[in-house]
């Protein structure tokens, strides 16, 4: 029942402000772009703790490949903002070595696709080491970078690494959607003594969200492992993370018109998954549609399907869970092919309609 095989070629949702809906109604809210929120988070943490430093390709004088580290080089100098040669394996290994010795590096990958070059270091030397060394070698490191699809960057620059990283014990994996998510999760990641992978999204960097007073403060930390219910609803649960949360929000808006009240969950954290929230919501609505950009086999949605099967949420389901995922192909380049490989609003709507029309004998 995979809806990813039925595609409608719609114009893909871009940086439209329809997504930038505030889900919190605080009075004094400033519009902050996601990239500025991440920048603020890193800046504040570097100010707070001298052992935090950031390294990666183009982070220093170029101000960051996506300008996320803008201004940091001028403020902290080349001892704490380090431009590296083009060797992911090398600088990841170096950062891990520094982390073993109680520094707190932030490793920027230009895209998470390039983190595949350093996968051995991330998994074998960072994630597993605390366990393998029986507590001797802690690795308080943060790996961050844009994850998932972009606009016309084809297969080797569009892979989603959520599923791969979230399957590794020893790692924590977070994926923010809004500016608040980005700031709070980044600060939590830097303060966390475990290795954390932060999966950002390139197309979200420029999107602005309102940020509350509380979120603008220097100690605003979102605990890792907590999902957020963006919109509360009663008929169907839409679960997603990163950019596709925007897709779900749009779908929820459209479904309101059809009389279906959709609850949208922004996972925020892929490892540990907030199983409580997922199960509670599934029990409440009885119907679940999970949306992700990555490939369908062994993806995040597969894990959520397993949760719904293994726990007592199963008894509350009125319909099988539906997945809306990216197509099971390496990402093509041509615009129409690319659109056809990614989940669109229509696919989510179709999935929801299928789910909500399915009723067990009453």
């Amino acid at each position, binding site marked *: 029942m995979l809806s990813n095989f039925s595609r409608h070629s719609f114009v893909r949702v871009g940086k439209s402000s329809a997504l930038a809906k505030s889900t919190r109604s605080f009075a004094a809210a400033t519009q902050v772009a996601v990239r500025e929120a991440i920048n603020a988070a890193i800046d504040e943490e570097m100010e707070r703790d001298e052992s935090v430093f950031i390294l990666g390709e183009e982070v220093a004088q170029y101000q960051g490949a996506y300008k996320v580290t803008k201004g940091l080089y001028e403020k902290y100098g080349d*001892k704490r903002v*380090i431009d*590296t*040669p083009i*060797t992911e*394996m*090398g*600088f*990841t*290994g*170096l*950062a*891990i*070595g*520094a*982390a*073993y*010795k*109680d*520094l707190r*590096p932030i490793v920027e990958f230009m895209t998470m696709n390039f983190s595949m070059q350093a996968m*051995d*270091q991330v998994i*074998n*030397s960072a994630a597993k*080491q*605390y*366990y*393998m*060394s*029986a*507590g*001797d*070698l*802690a690795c308080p490191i943060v790996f961050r970078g844009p994850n998932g699809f972009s606009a016309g960057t084809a297969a080797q620059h569009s892979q989603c690494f959520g599923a791969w990283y979230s399957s590794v*014990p*020893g790692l*924590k994996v977070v994926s923010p959607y809004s500016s608040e998510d980005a700031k709070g999760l980044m600060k939590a990641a830097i303060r*966390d*003594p*475990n290795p954390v992978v932060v999966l950002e999204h390139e197309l979200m960097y420029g999107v602005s969200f309102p940020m509350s007073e509380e979120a603008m403060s220097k100690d605003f930390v979102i605990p890792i*492992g907590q999902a957020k219910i963006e919109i509360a609803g009663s008929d169907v649960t839409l679960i997603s993370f990163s950019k596709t949360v925007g897709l779900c929000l749009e779908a929820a808006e459209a479904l309101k018109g059809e009389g279906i009240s959709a609850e949208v969950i922004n996972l925020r954290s892929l490892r*540990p998954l907030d199983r409580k929230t997922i199960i509670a919501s599934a029990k409440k609505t009885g119907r679940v549609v999970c949306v992700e950009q990555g490939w369908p086999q062994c993806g995040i949605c597969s894990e959520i399907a397993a949760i719904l099967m293994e726990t007592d949420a199963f008894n509350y389901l009125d319909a099988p869970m539906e997945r809306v995922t990216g197509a099971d192909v390496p990402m093509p380049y041509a615009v129409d092919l690319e659109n056809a490989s990614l989940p669109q609003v229509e696919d989510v709507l179709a999935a929801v309609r299928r789910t909500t029309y399915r009723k067990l004998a009453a």
Partner: protein
Amino acid sequence: MRIPILSIHPIKVLRTPRHFSSKSASRASKNRSLSSARPLPQEEVESDWGTIHDYKQRAMIPYHPARLAPSIQERTSAAQEMTLSYAGTVPIPITSNLQLIQPEDDTPRGIWPVYRLMVSTHRRRPQNALRTLEQDGEIRDPAYDGINQPVLRPDVTTPDDVEDNLDQFRAFLAHAHPYQSDEIQKSGLLRASKYPYVDTNSNNTLLRAHRQIVRLRQMDDILLNAQRQGRISFYLTCRGEEAILMGAASALEVGDPVFAQYREQGVLMWRGFTLEQFTNQCFSNILDLGKGRQMPIHYGSRALNYHTVSSPLGTQLPHAVGAAYRLKLAGEPNVAVCFFGDGSTSTPDFHSALNFAATLNAPAIFLCRNNGYAISTPTSDQFAGDGVISRAPGYGMAGVRVDGNDIFAVHAAVREAKQYALSKNAPVLIEAMTYRQGHHSTSDDSSQYRSVDEVLTTTENHDPLNRLEAFLKKHDLLSEEDVEVMRKQERNDVVKAMEQAERRPPVPMRELFTDVYHDMPLHLQRQQAQLEAHVKKYPEKYA
């Protein structure tokens, strides 16, 4: 840096051109088939040292005494001393001058020379060798480098009670061998320690090094046999490389973090890891510091600043650079030391780490144990260039090649390297030439790819322990009976530790869930409680 005596004593060069060309032809066959080789250059080159033929075939370091002066050529016995060749590699010219080739220096053209302080014993002599046995255990005669120096020799006898007074012995040696007096005086191996060592109960560093090598060898032998008997699942010996490990470890302090590959248990032993701790890790029992998480020989000790061994090859190199960077930022007088083998130099991590260390100015020492084989791959298949050390100037870092079976040479090189790294905040690459006497590991049978004869010959002629013992016996620091007693003692200690370790209970099952994260997450806490309840409910099944 040592000022060569060469500037004061010019070498007299006697020429026999034909003799030269035949020598060079035999050395020319590196690993390329002669049929495809271009004819070698026969032009004459004028230099300060007279006319030199086939200069490309010999190491040419300006002002460097590693020159094959033809006056020595006539002595066939000396010809054996002139080159080093373990594992069937290209013959490498030997030098008695320790020179850390810095990036600003002229790089040796051709084969980099190898530094050696102590003469190699040749138990199994080739037929045309004329060397006499008195030369075993000696400090190397710089005359073989073409250096004429006044020889103050052999009426000078080793003073008595040297065992209790290592400093006196050191002074004597320096006096007896004036060319190497610098290295001898600076050597930490020939310096008594401030406090007595716990395991030998004496201040004598040199004898402790010897004893530790004996202990290490016994441990390797016995644990290897234990694996063959099925008592442990895996083991890996460092047989033949002990001089590198003890020589390097004795030049370092506990404050220097060590990033080992897997064949460096000697460094850990020198720092104080006990036989009990070694065997506990191999048997994964309740006292294992690693809580049963790792295969045997993957030791680690936070207290001794020895990073837990990680199986993937070469990954520890960038870690060492990161640690060195941190040491530099903190201003600590320590270097990060990284050990790896010849095979690991082909990994991408090697390139990244060395390039990084040089560009970031990280005080790291990269010590390559070139033991001739990477499992079954001989170094002739591993590199086409001159080993590992020739890459150092390519990365812009200092480097030196040493005889890895000579404990004094390795110690001197690491000592020099540490001083250089700290004073200039720059990395150093050391290539220690040695031979892997054992199999790669218990999962390997090396007779499949190398002849048993090669192993036996190299072991007999170039074993580091034999060389050290010859030196100690020659200078009356040790006798054969002492060595026998020591071997038996150490063997008993190892067997006792192993038997105790075998009998200890295994790691408790609750350790399955700890240390995945800093704080145990809820789901693992629940699973741990579930498992414990289950085991409690069916104790007879889990006894």
